[in-house]
């Protein structure tokens, strides 16, 4: 079977996204969950670039730049939150923080 380039790129993006989704559902370690979000964002960006090359327009690549900037902001805030969590609970288990002691 000969795959159309756009189809192949979209399939790759879908596979990577689902792998990230599996990881975020399965893992308990909170850094692994952050990594999974990174994988999923990257897959979404790949899909945008593939679509951009399919239509021959720059819009998809512009979206990729925005996704990149958002991933950078997200990872810095996420790491700061993990740092606070680690100082408070001395572990990276996300189940430890399941209860809100309001």
């Amino acid at each position, binding site marked *: 079977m000969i795959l159309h380039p756009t189809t192949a790129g979209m399939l790759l993006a879908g596979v990577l996204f689902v792998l*990230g989704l599996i990881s975020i559902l399965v893992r308990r370690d909170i850094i692994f969950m952050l990594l999974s979000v990174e994988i999923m964002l990257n897959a979404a960006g790949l899909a945008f670039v593939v679509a951009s090359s399919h239509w021959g327009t720059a819009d998809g690549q512009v979206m990729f730049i925005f996704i990149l*900037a958002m991933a*950078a902001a997200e990872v810095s805030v996420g790491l700061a939150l993990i740092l606070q969590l680690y100082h408070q609970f001395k572990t990276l288990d996300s189940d430890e923080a399941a209860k809100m002691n309001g």
Partner: protein
Amino acid sequence: MIGAAFYIAAFIAVLATVMVITRYNIMHALLYLVVSLLAVAVVLYLYGAPFMAALEVIVYAGAIMVLLIFFVMMLNLGKESAAQEKLWLKPRIWIFPSLLCIVLLGELVFLVLQNHQPVSEVKMVNPKEVGIALFGPYILAVELTGILLMAGIVGAYHLGRQKEKTLHRFLENNQS
């Protein structure tokens, strides 16, 4: 057009991502993730986006991954955390979500293979067009991204700050 280079890069990307989600040790997972991102950068290059490939290497594989690696080194997670992860990750836990996700993937593949677009080759979009689009119609979104990044910096600074330890006078005197 879609040649062996794409298939090799795609295979490496998927394989490295599978290795990321099955590692117990966070450091090994991070290094595999760098490999995966580099493979995705090759794919981006093949799809006629060389500037995006460069950005992927510089920002994702360079900046974000180095941030994560330094963070893990700072927390100094050792063998205990890997052992704990091994304890958590039993087939009973991971098999059901994985099955559900694989069903979703099957649906997605089916839908993507369904469409019969007229055949068009991969078109090259050079960085100049991206720049013109970025600072033309998308200028508002660029400004919003700037605000988002600033909010990220302020948020990371605020959250990452350590609370000052307030010791009792007596304890302070004893320690010094």
